[in-house]
């Protein structure tokens, strides 16, 4: 079995702020980390590998520094690593990103592709479905658990977590899974794997390798454009309210529109 795990390098978003003067992102001193959701996808891939045996290939698209997330993946047990890096990939929105990633994954021809539910910088949850759609993979989002993987029968059974409760789905392989954080606990790398990751020199693929249409890549190939960024309104503490019936009634009235009148599944 061959499993591709897509891992994005993201800024540790808790630290990203907007400079009020220049209105640009302040990223000084903001460390880059592997997208946490992707690490849970990797962990699930490794658990599938532990149970059924598999080759796990970590793929990341980004600048050359993105090698760090691939090292992380190898330190945890990924077998191979591929870095997609090329100037024409830069500035891509989710549509153009999934185009590039799908191009790379197509060359690998895996049984399973694993992604995090979303990346913590963009929070879009669109790249996974984009890849699945482009490659004709069965799309399984919001996965918390795998129950069975059968490469012979080309079938996978997973549990997805929906708003109303868990759903078990049987699907045809090849498939693409997007994984939630609560799926698992990420393992702690062993020293031999860590040493292996330090020595890692990933395969580097640029668009000469992929041979994709440059007009559909990067900023140029992105249908969406960010036209403005701004700071969210500051959260300010409300003034102190006394605990009288009258005050509470006022608050309830203001909260009412936020509350669902019914909270149940229609069955």
């Amino acid at each position, binding site marked *: 079995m061959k499993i591709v795990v897509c891992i994005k390098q993201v800024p*540790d978003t808790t*630290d990203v702020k907007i400079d009020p003067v220049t209105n640009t992102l302040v990223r000084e001193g903001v*460390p880059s980390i592997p997208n946490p959701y992707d690490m849970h996808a990797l962990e699930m891939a490794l658990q599938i590998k532990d149970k059924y045996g598999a080759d796990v290939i970590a793929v990341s698209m980004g600048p050359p520094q993105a090698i760090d997330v691939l090292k992380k993946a190898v330190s945890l047990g990924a077998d191979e690593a591929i870095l997609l890096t090329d100037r024409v990939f830069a500035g891509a929105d989710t549509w153009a990103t999934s185009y590039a990633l799908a191009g790379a994954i197509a060359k690998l021809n895996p049984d399973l592709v694993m992604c995090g539910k979303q990346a913590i910088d963009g929070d879009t949850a669109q790249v996974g479905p984009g890849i699945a759609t482009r490659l004709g993979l069965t799309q399984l989002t919001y996965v918390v658990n795998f129950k069975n993987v059968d490469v012979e029968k080309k079938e996978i059974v997973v549990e997805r977590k929906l708003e109303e409760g868990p759903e078990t789905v049987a699907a045809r392989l090849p498939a693409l899974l997007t994984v939630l954080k609560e799926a698992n606990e990420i393992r702690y790398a062993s020293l031999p794997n860590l040493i292996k990751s330090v020595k890692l020199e990933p395969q580097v693929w640029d668009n000469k390798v992929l041979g994709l249409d440059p007009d559909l890549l990067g900023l140029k190939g992105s249908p969406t454009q960010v036209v403005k960024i701004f700071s969210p309104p500051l959260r300010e503490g409300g003034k102190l309210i006394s605990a009288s019936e009258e005050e509470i009634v006022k608050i309830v009235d203001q909260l009412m529109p936020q509350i669902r009148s019914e909270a149940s599944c229609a069955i």
Partner: protein
Amino acid sequence: MKLEDKLFLDRYVVDNIPHLKIKDPSVCTMCVKKQCLYTCPAQVYKEEEGKIVVSYEGCVECGTCRIICSENLEWKYPRGGFGISYKFG
């Protein structure tokens, strides 16, 4: 700015395994000086209802508490890769 707000500026990679542990809480109850409460620069130790509560997540790993309370404290560094991660230093 209050200490809590300052600590909020710091970056931590929080380990879910606590690296600070009081060996015998009853020793703390009897401790007269309770130096840990005021010398810890990150106010990791707080007293609540006579008990010392350890908020290891905010620890800056300086070692102060270990030196002033070597007998009743199990002091380790967080696992490699976890804990405080200074952005400026």
